[in-house]
């Protein structure tokens, strides 16, 4: 067995096992952590087939952003997962039945699937010796620069929107301002008050 095959079975095995643990673990935080493990192993599989750009994207986008977002949501929202799972066993037969139907359909579809002529030949890198990231970069900033900029503006609109709808300027909040603190003079800081004797303040 070659080294690549060994790594394939390693990544694939861990990915399947941790994917199972995502739905099996009782603690939702553990579920998210297993999800991250699944993503990391999937990106390992992508590296094995030579799609290193997608592998990096998977790590950056899914592990770095999406999974962390999940983690925050799980920790900040008080969702009682134990309660959600009640009746899990009760619905198990129906669930298994639907699962079997889907599985049979998938087998039927994939079993009869044939690729058209010329499809497999088309999936080769455009120029030899050019890595995926370079190939994408070459068209992204030239042929597709219009869409790239437009997408940038859409993200900007989303950001402005989130701020417009949620940011509230609170009155009477004390903020630290270091220049003001440093510029304090004796006259500003000390107030000499004449206290009449026997009265107090």
């Amino acid at each position, binding site marked *: 067995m070659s080294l690549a095959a060994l790594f394939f079975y390693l990544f694939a095995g861990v990915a399947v096992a941790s994917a199972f643990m995502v739905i099996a673990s009782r603690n939702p935080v553990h579920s998210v952590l297993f999800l991250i493990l699944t993503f990391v192993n999937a990106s390992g599989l992508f590296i094995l087939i030579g799609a290193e750009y997608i592998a990096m994207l998977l790590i950056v986008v899914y592990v770095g952003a999406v999974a962390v977002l999940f983690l925050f949501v799980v920790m900040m929202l008080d969702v009682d997962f134990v309660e959600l799972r009640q009746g899990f066993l009760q619905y198990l037969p129906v669930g298994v039945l639907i699962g079997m139907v889907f599985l049979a359909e998938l087998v039927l579809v994939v079993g009869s699937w044939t690729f058209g002529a010329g499809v497999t030949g088309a999936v080769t890198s455009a120029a030899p010796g050019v890595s995926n990231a370079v190939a994408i970069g070459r068209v992204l900033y030239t*042929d597709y620069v219009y869409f790239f900029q*437009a997408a940038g*503006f859409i993200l900007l609109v989303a950001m402005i929107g989130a701020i417009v709808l949620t940011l509230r300027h609170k009155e009477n909040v004390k903020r630290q301002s270091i220049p003001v603190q440093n510029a304090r003079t004796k006259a500003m800081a000390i107030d000499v008050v004449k206290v009449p004797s026997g009265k107090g303040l």
Partner: protein
Amino acid sequence: MTLSLAALGPALPELLLALSALALLMLGAFAGPKSTDTVNGLALAALFGALVLVLIGPAEATLFNGAFQVDAFGRFMKVLALIGAGGTLAMSVDWLKIEKQDRFEYPVLVLLSTLGMMVLISAGDLIALYMGLEMMSLALYVIAANNRDSVRSTEAGLKYFVLGALSSGMLLYGASLIYGFTGSVNFAQIAQAAREPSLGLIFGIVFTFAGLCFKVSAVPFHMWTPDVYEGAPAPVTAFFASAPKVAAMAVFVRFAMEALPNVAHQWQQIIVFVSIASMALGSFAAIGQRNFKRLMAYSSIGHMGFALVGLAAGTQQGVQGVLVYMAVYLVMTLGTFACILSMRRKDGMVESYDELAGLARTSPVKAFMLAVLMFSLAGIPPLAGFLAKYYVFLAAIEAGLYTLAVIGVLTSVVGAFYYLRIVKIMYFDEPAAAFEPMRSEPRVVLAISGTFTLLFFVYPAPLIAAAAAAARALF
């Protein structure tokens, strides 16, 4: 491929809008709330500048491998969209200030939304179409919820967002099917590939049209319209009813005519159905409404149905009809909303049109203008609304769509009921308390709109000729 900066010339209006939106955002963020007036003024100036650039810009150009195209059709629609955006922004400044909803982000979002409309109108392929649509809509979702302390406004924003996301999903699904079955996202190449209808292509067309119908609020994808129009602040509703409708209708026509001319008989029946359903619902459902904004929502659904009659014809004359219709619709809508925005008494805004009772005695000029607009919306000759309907129905009859034309005329008779009821309330009911005097911007918009509607039939040639030239660009 190298792209020199000078080659971007045809996209100058878009660049101006994009850069001024960024600059105004910086200005507002650093100068704080006191800069709102400046930002409003400069945003208006930017819209006006873009309008001038569209008018003096090149007549025909293609950029970015066909993703961005400038032609007579695009220029016509861009001028309409910019007028709509500028007119509503000008009217909204004072209104938002009185209601204490003025924020510098509002004009910036209007600018970005208008930028999305320009991208949409110029779209030459499916990716640009989607990008423009999202840029336009995302900004609209936000300004619908502009009054974020009001439950109805936030509900409007949320409802619009959720349903808009659903329609975007359908549009993307359709676009991916069309790409899969024709092998291209470019409109011209889709037209080349789609000579024979295939099942996959038809599915793609249906889903894409569903997404586009949502944006023009045509039945059966209209459900969001009344709630969003009623919930959103009035100037935002005015904006919704004007510029985005023009842009969405432009891309609808362009997509149907440029990408799918060879399978026209496939999508024609969809448009005929949507058109009949929109006209019927727009006429009947509006009868029970008392809220003026909600009434205008149903009115706009109906009018989109009338405009789609021209598209259903699928001829050059039909497209010309759509263009004339959208121009007239835009002007009438701006004028009507100028009136809605000035329905203000000492204790705040009123939205029911019963409050207009006896307006003819309290402010006769305004009542006359609004009556002209209502007659025109109902399509009574010789006003502008009648001529617009005349052109689309004529195109439908010449294309052999007699049933569509007859149903259209019948529904416009039904629709006349609720427009004329407003005239009756203004002229024959006992006067209610007078409104606060109209602000200057709505007054100007109402005056221009009313005069245009009233006198359009005297000299319609320039608009008709421009629309004819624009329609020719697609054939």
